């Protein structure tokens, strides 16, 4: 196509520059162009939240953003939060409290939850449920997801207190 754009993204602290058609959806850019496959494609209609990433400090469904809109943006995916050797507190909590079964929704859940806890470090159960309402899980019934996020909040707060 003739209308390719020069795009710059910063994903998980690493700069990327490439040519892309503006209509490319960000989730495909991440998964297929940059091989960052943590964010998943669930519904591809902005309902399920499996593709949730953090863009310039906002939780966003990457299936409903063109790469052109993200040009110049700072993006964090699940890979930027932690990995097998350096698990994020939320990842540990999801493992500890069985906050997943098949795991398909989990990257989106944890990426969203990280933003939620950043904005509201001490949420009530109701606030967790309201704040996670954009992410759908078909396995767990949510009970253990909520438990995991509340546990991670406690842990993060305890670590903060210990550091003070």
């Amino acid at each position, binding site marked *: *196509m003739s*209308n390719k754009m020069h795009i710059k993204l910063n994903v998980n602290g690493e700069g990327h520059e490439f040519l892309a058609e503006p209509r490319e959806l960000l989730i495909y850019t991440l998964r297929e162009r940059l091989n960052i496959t943590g964010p998943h494609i669930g519904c591809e209609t*902005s309902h399920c*939240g499996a593709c949730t990433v953090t863009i310039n400090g906002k*939780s*966003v469904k990457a299936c409903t*953003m*063109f790469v052109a809109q993200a040009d110049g943006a700072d993006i964090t995916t699940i890979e930027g939060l932690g990995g097998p050797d350096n698990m994020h507190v939320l990842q540990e909590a999801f493992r500890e409290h069985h906050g997943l079964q098949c795991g398909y929704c989990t990257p989106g859940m944890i990426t969203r939850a990280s933003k*939620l806890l950043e904005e509201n470090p001490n949420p009530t159960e109701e606030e967790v449920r309201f704040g996670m309402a*954009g992410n759908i899980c078909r396995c767990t019934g949510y009970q253990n997801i909520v438990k995991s996020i509340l546990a991670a909040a406690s842990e993060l707060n305890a670590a903060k207190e210990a550091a003070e």
Partner: protein
Amino acid sequence: MIPASFDYHRPSDMDGVIALLNEHGDDARVLAGGHSLIPMMKLRMAEVPHLIDLQAVDSLRGISINGSRVTIGAMVTQHDIINHAELAKVAPIMRETSLQIADPQVRYMGTVGGNVANGDPGNDMPGLMQCLDATLHLVGPDGTREVAARDYYEAAYVTAREEDEVLTAISFDALSGGYSYEKQKRKIGDYATAAAAVTIQTSGGKVSSASIAMTNLSDVPVWSEAAANAIIGTACDADAVKAAVNAMLDDIDPTEDNRGPVAFKRHVAGIILTRAITRAWDRA
């Protein structure tokens, strides 16, 4: 789900936006949060050869409160509204409504301007704008003009906005008193089966003025003057509320869809309006 190809533009001011709209005419559309337009483009129900992203137009982003006059830029998001302490104090119904729109991720992106301007009967802000008697600020090649929200909606997706005009802001007088936005939806993220925006002012233990608007119960938002008149002068007793509901039911015109048949929607509309009036009265 790959949309048709387009050229992308990101102007940094309204002059740039207007120039692009002039140049490309019907081939151009503006993009705000994108959570109505992008799904339509993905389904190829909307084809937009020139997409004009408003994200870099800073003049569209402010919330200003001048006495009781509230002005909200078109690119202010629902997330911004929810977290704006001063706005929540002056016009809490804006926050209450925004919290009931879509889900957290969508609210980070979804804007007041997109919600108001699009003319989708399922959107919540159009009814609220009618309830608040808001003014919509448009800019086009011939300059700016203002349209009353109550005159803006003509049919589903058909509004008083011309193709080459852009909504830049909404403004309204925030009246103190009771308020409520009540919404019945099947699930988070769904449009309303029925929703009601109600504001009430009182004097001497009775309703001195009121405004009532309904969402997704016609092809346009419905401002029901008759419903408001039914509670003015009363203490919102059960008979007055019932009269308001009956008046509202005369003004709406729901159609059957996957949210239910007409009789069900009318039933839900009555319950939702009863709740909204009761809550607004309690808060007045």
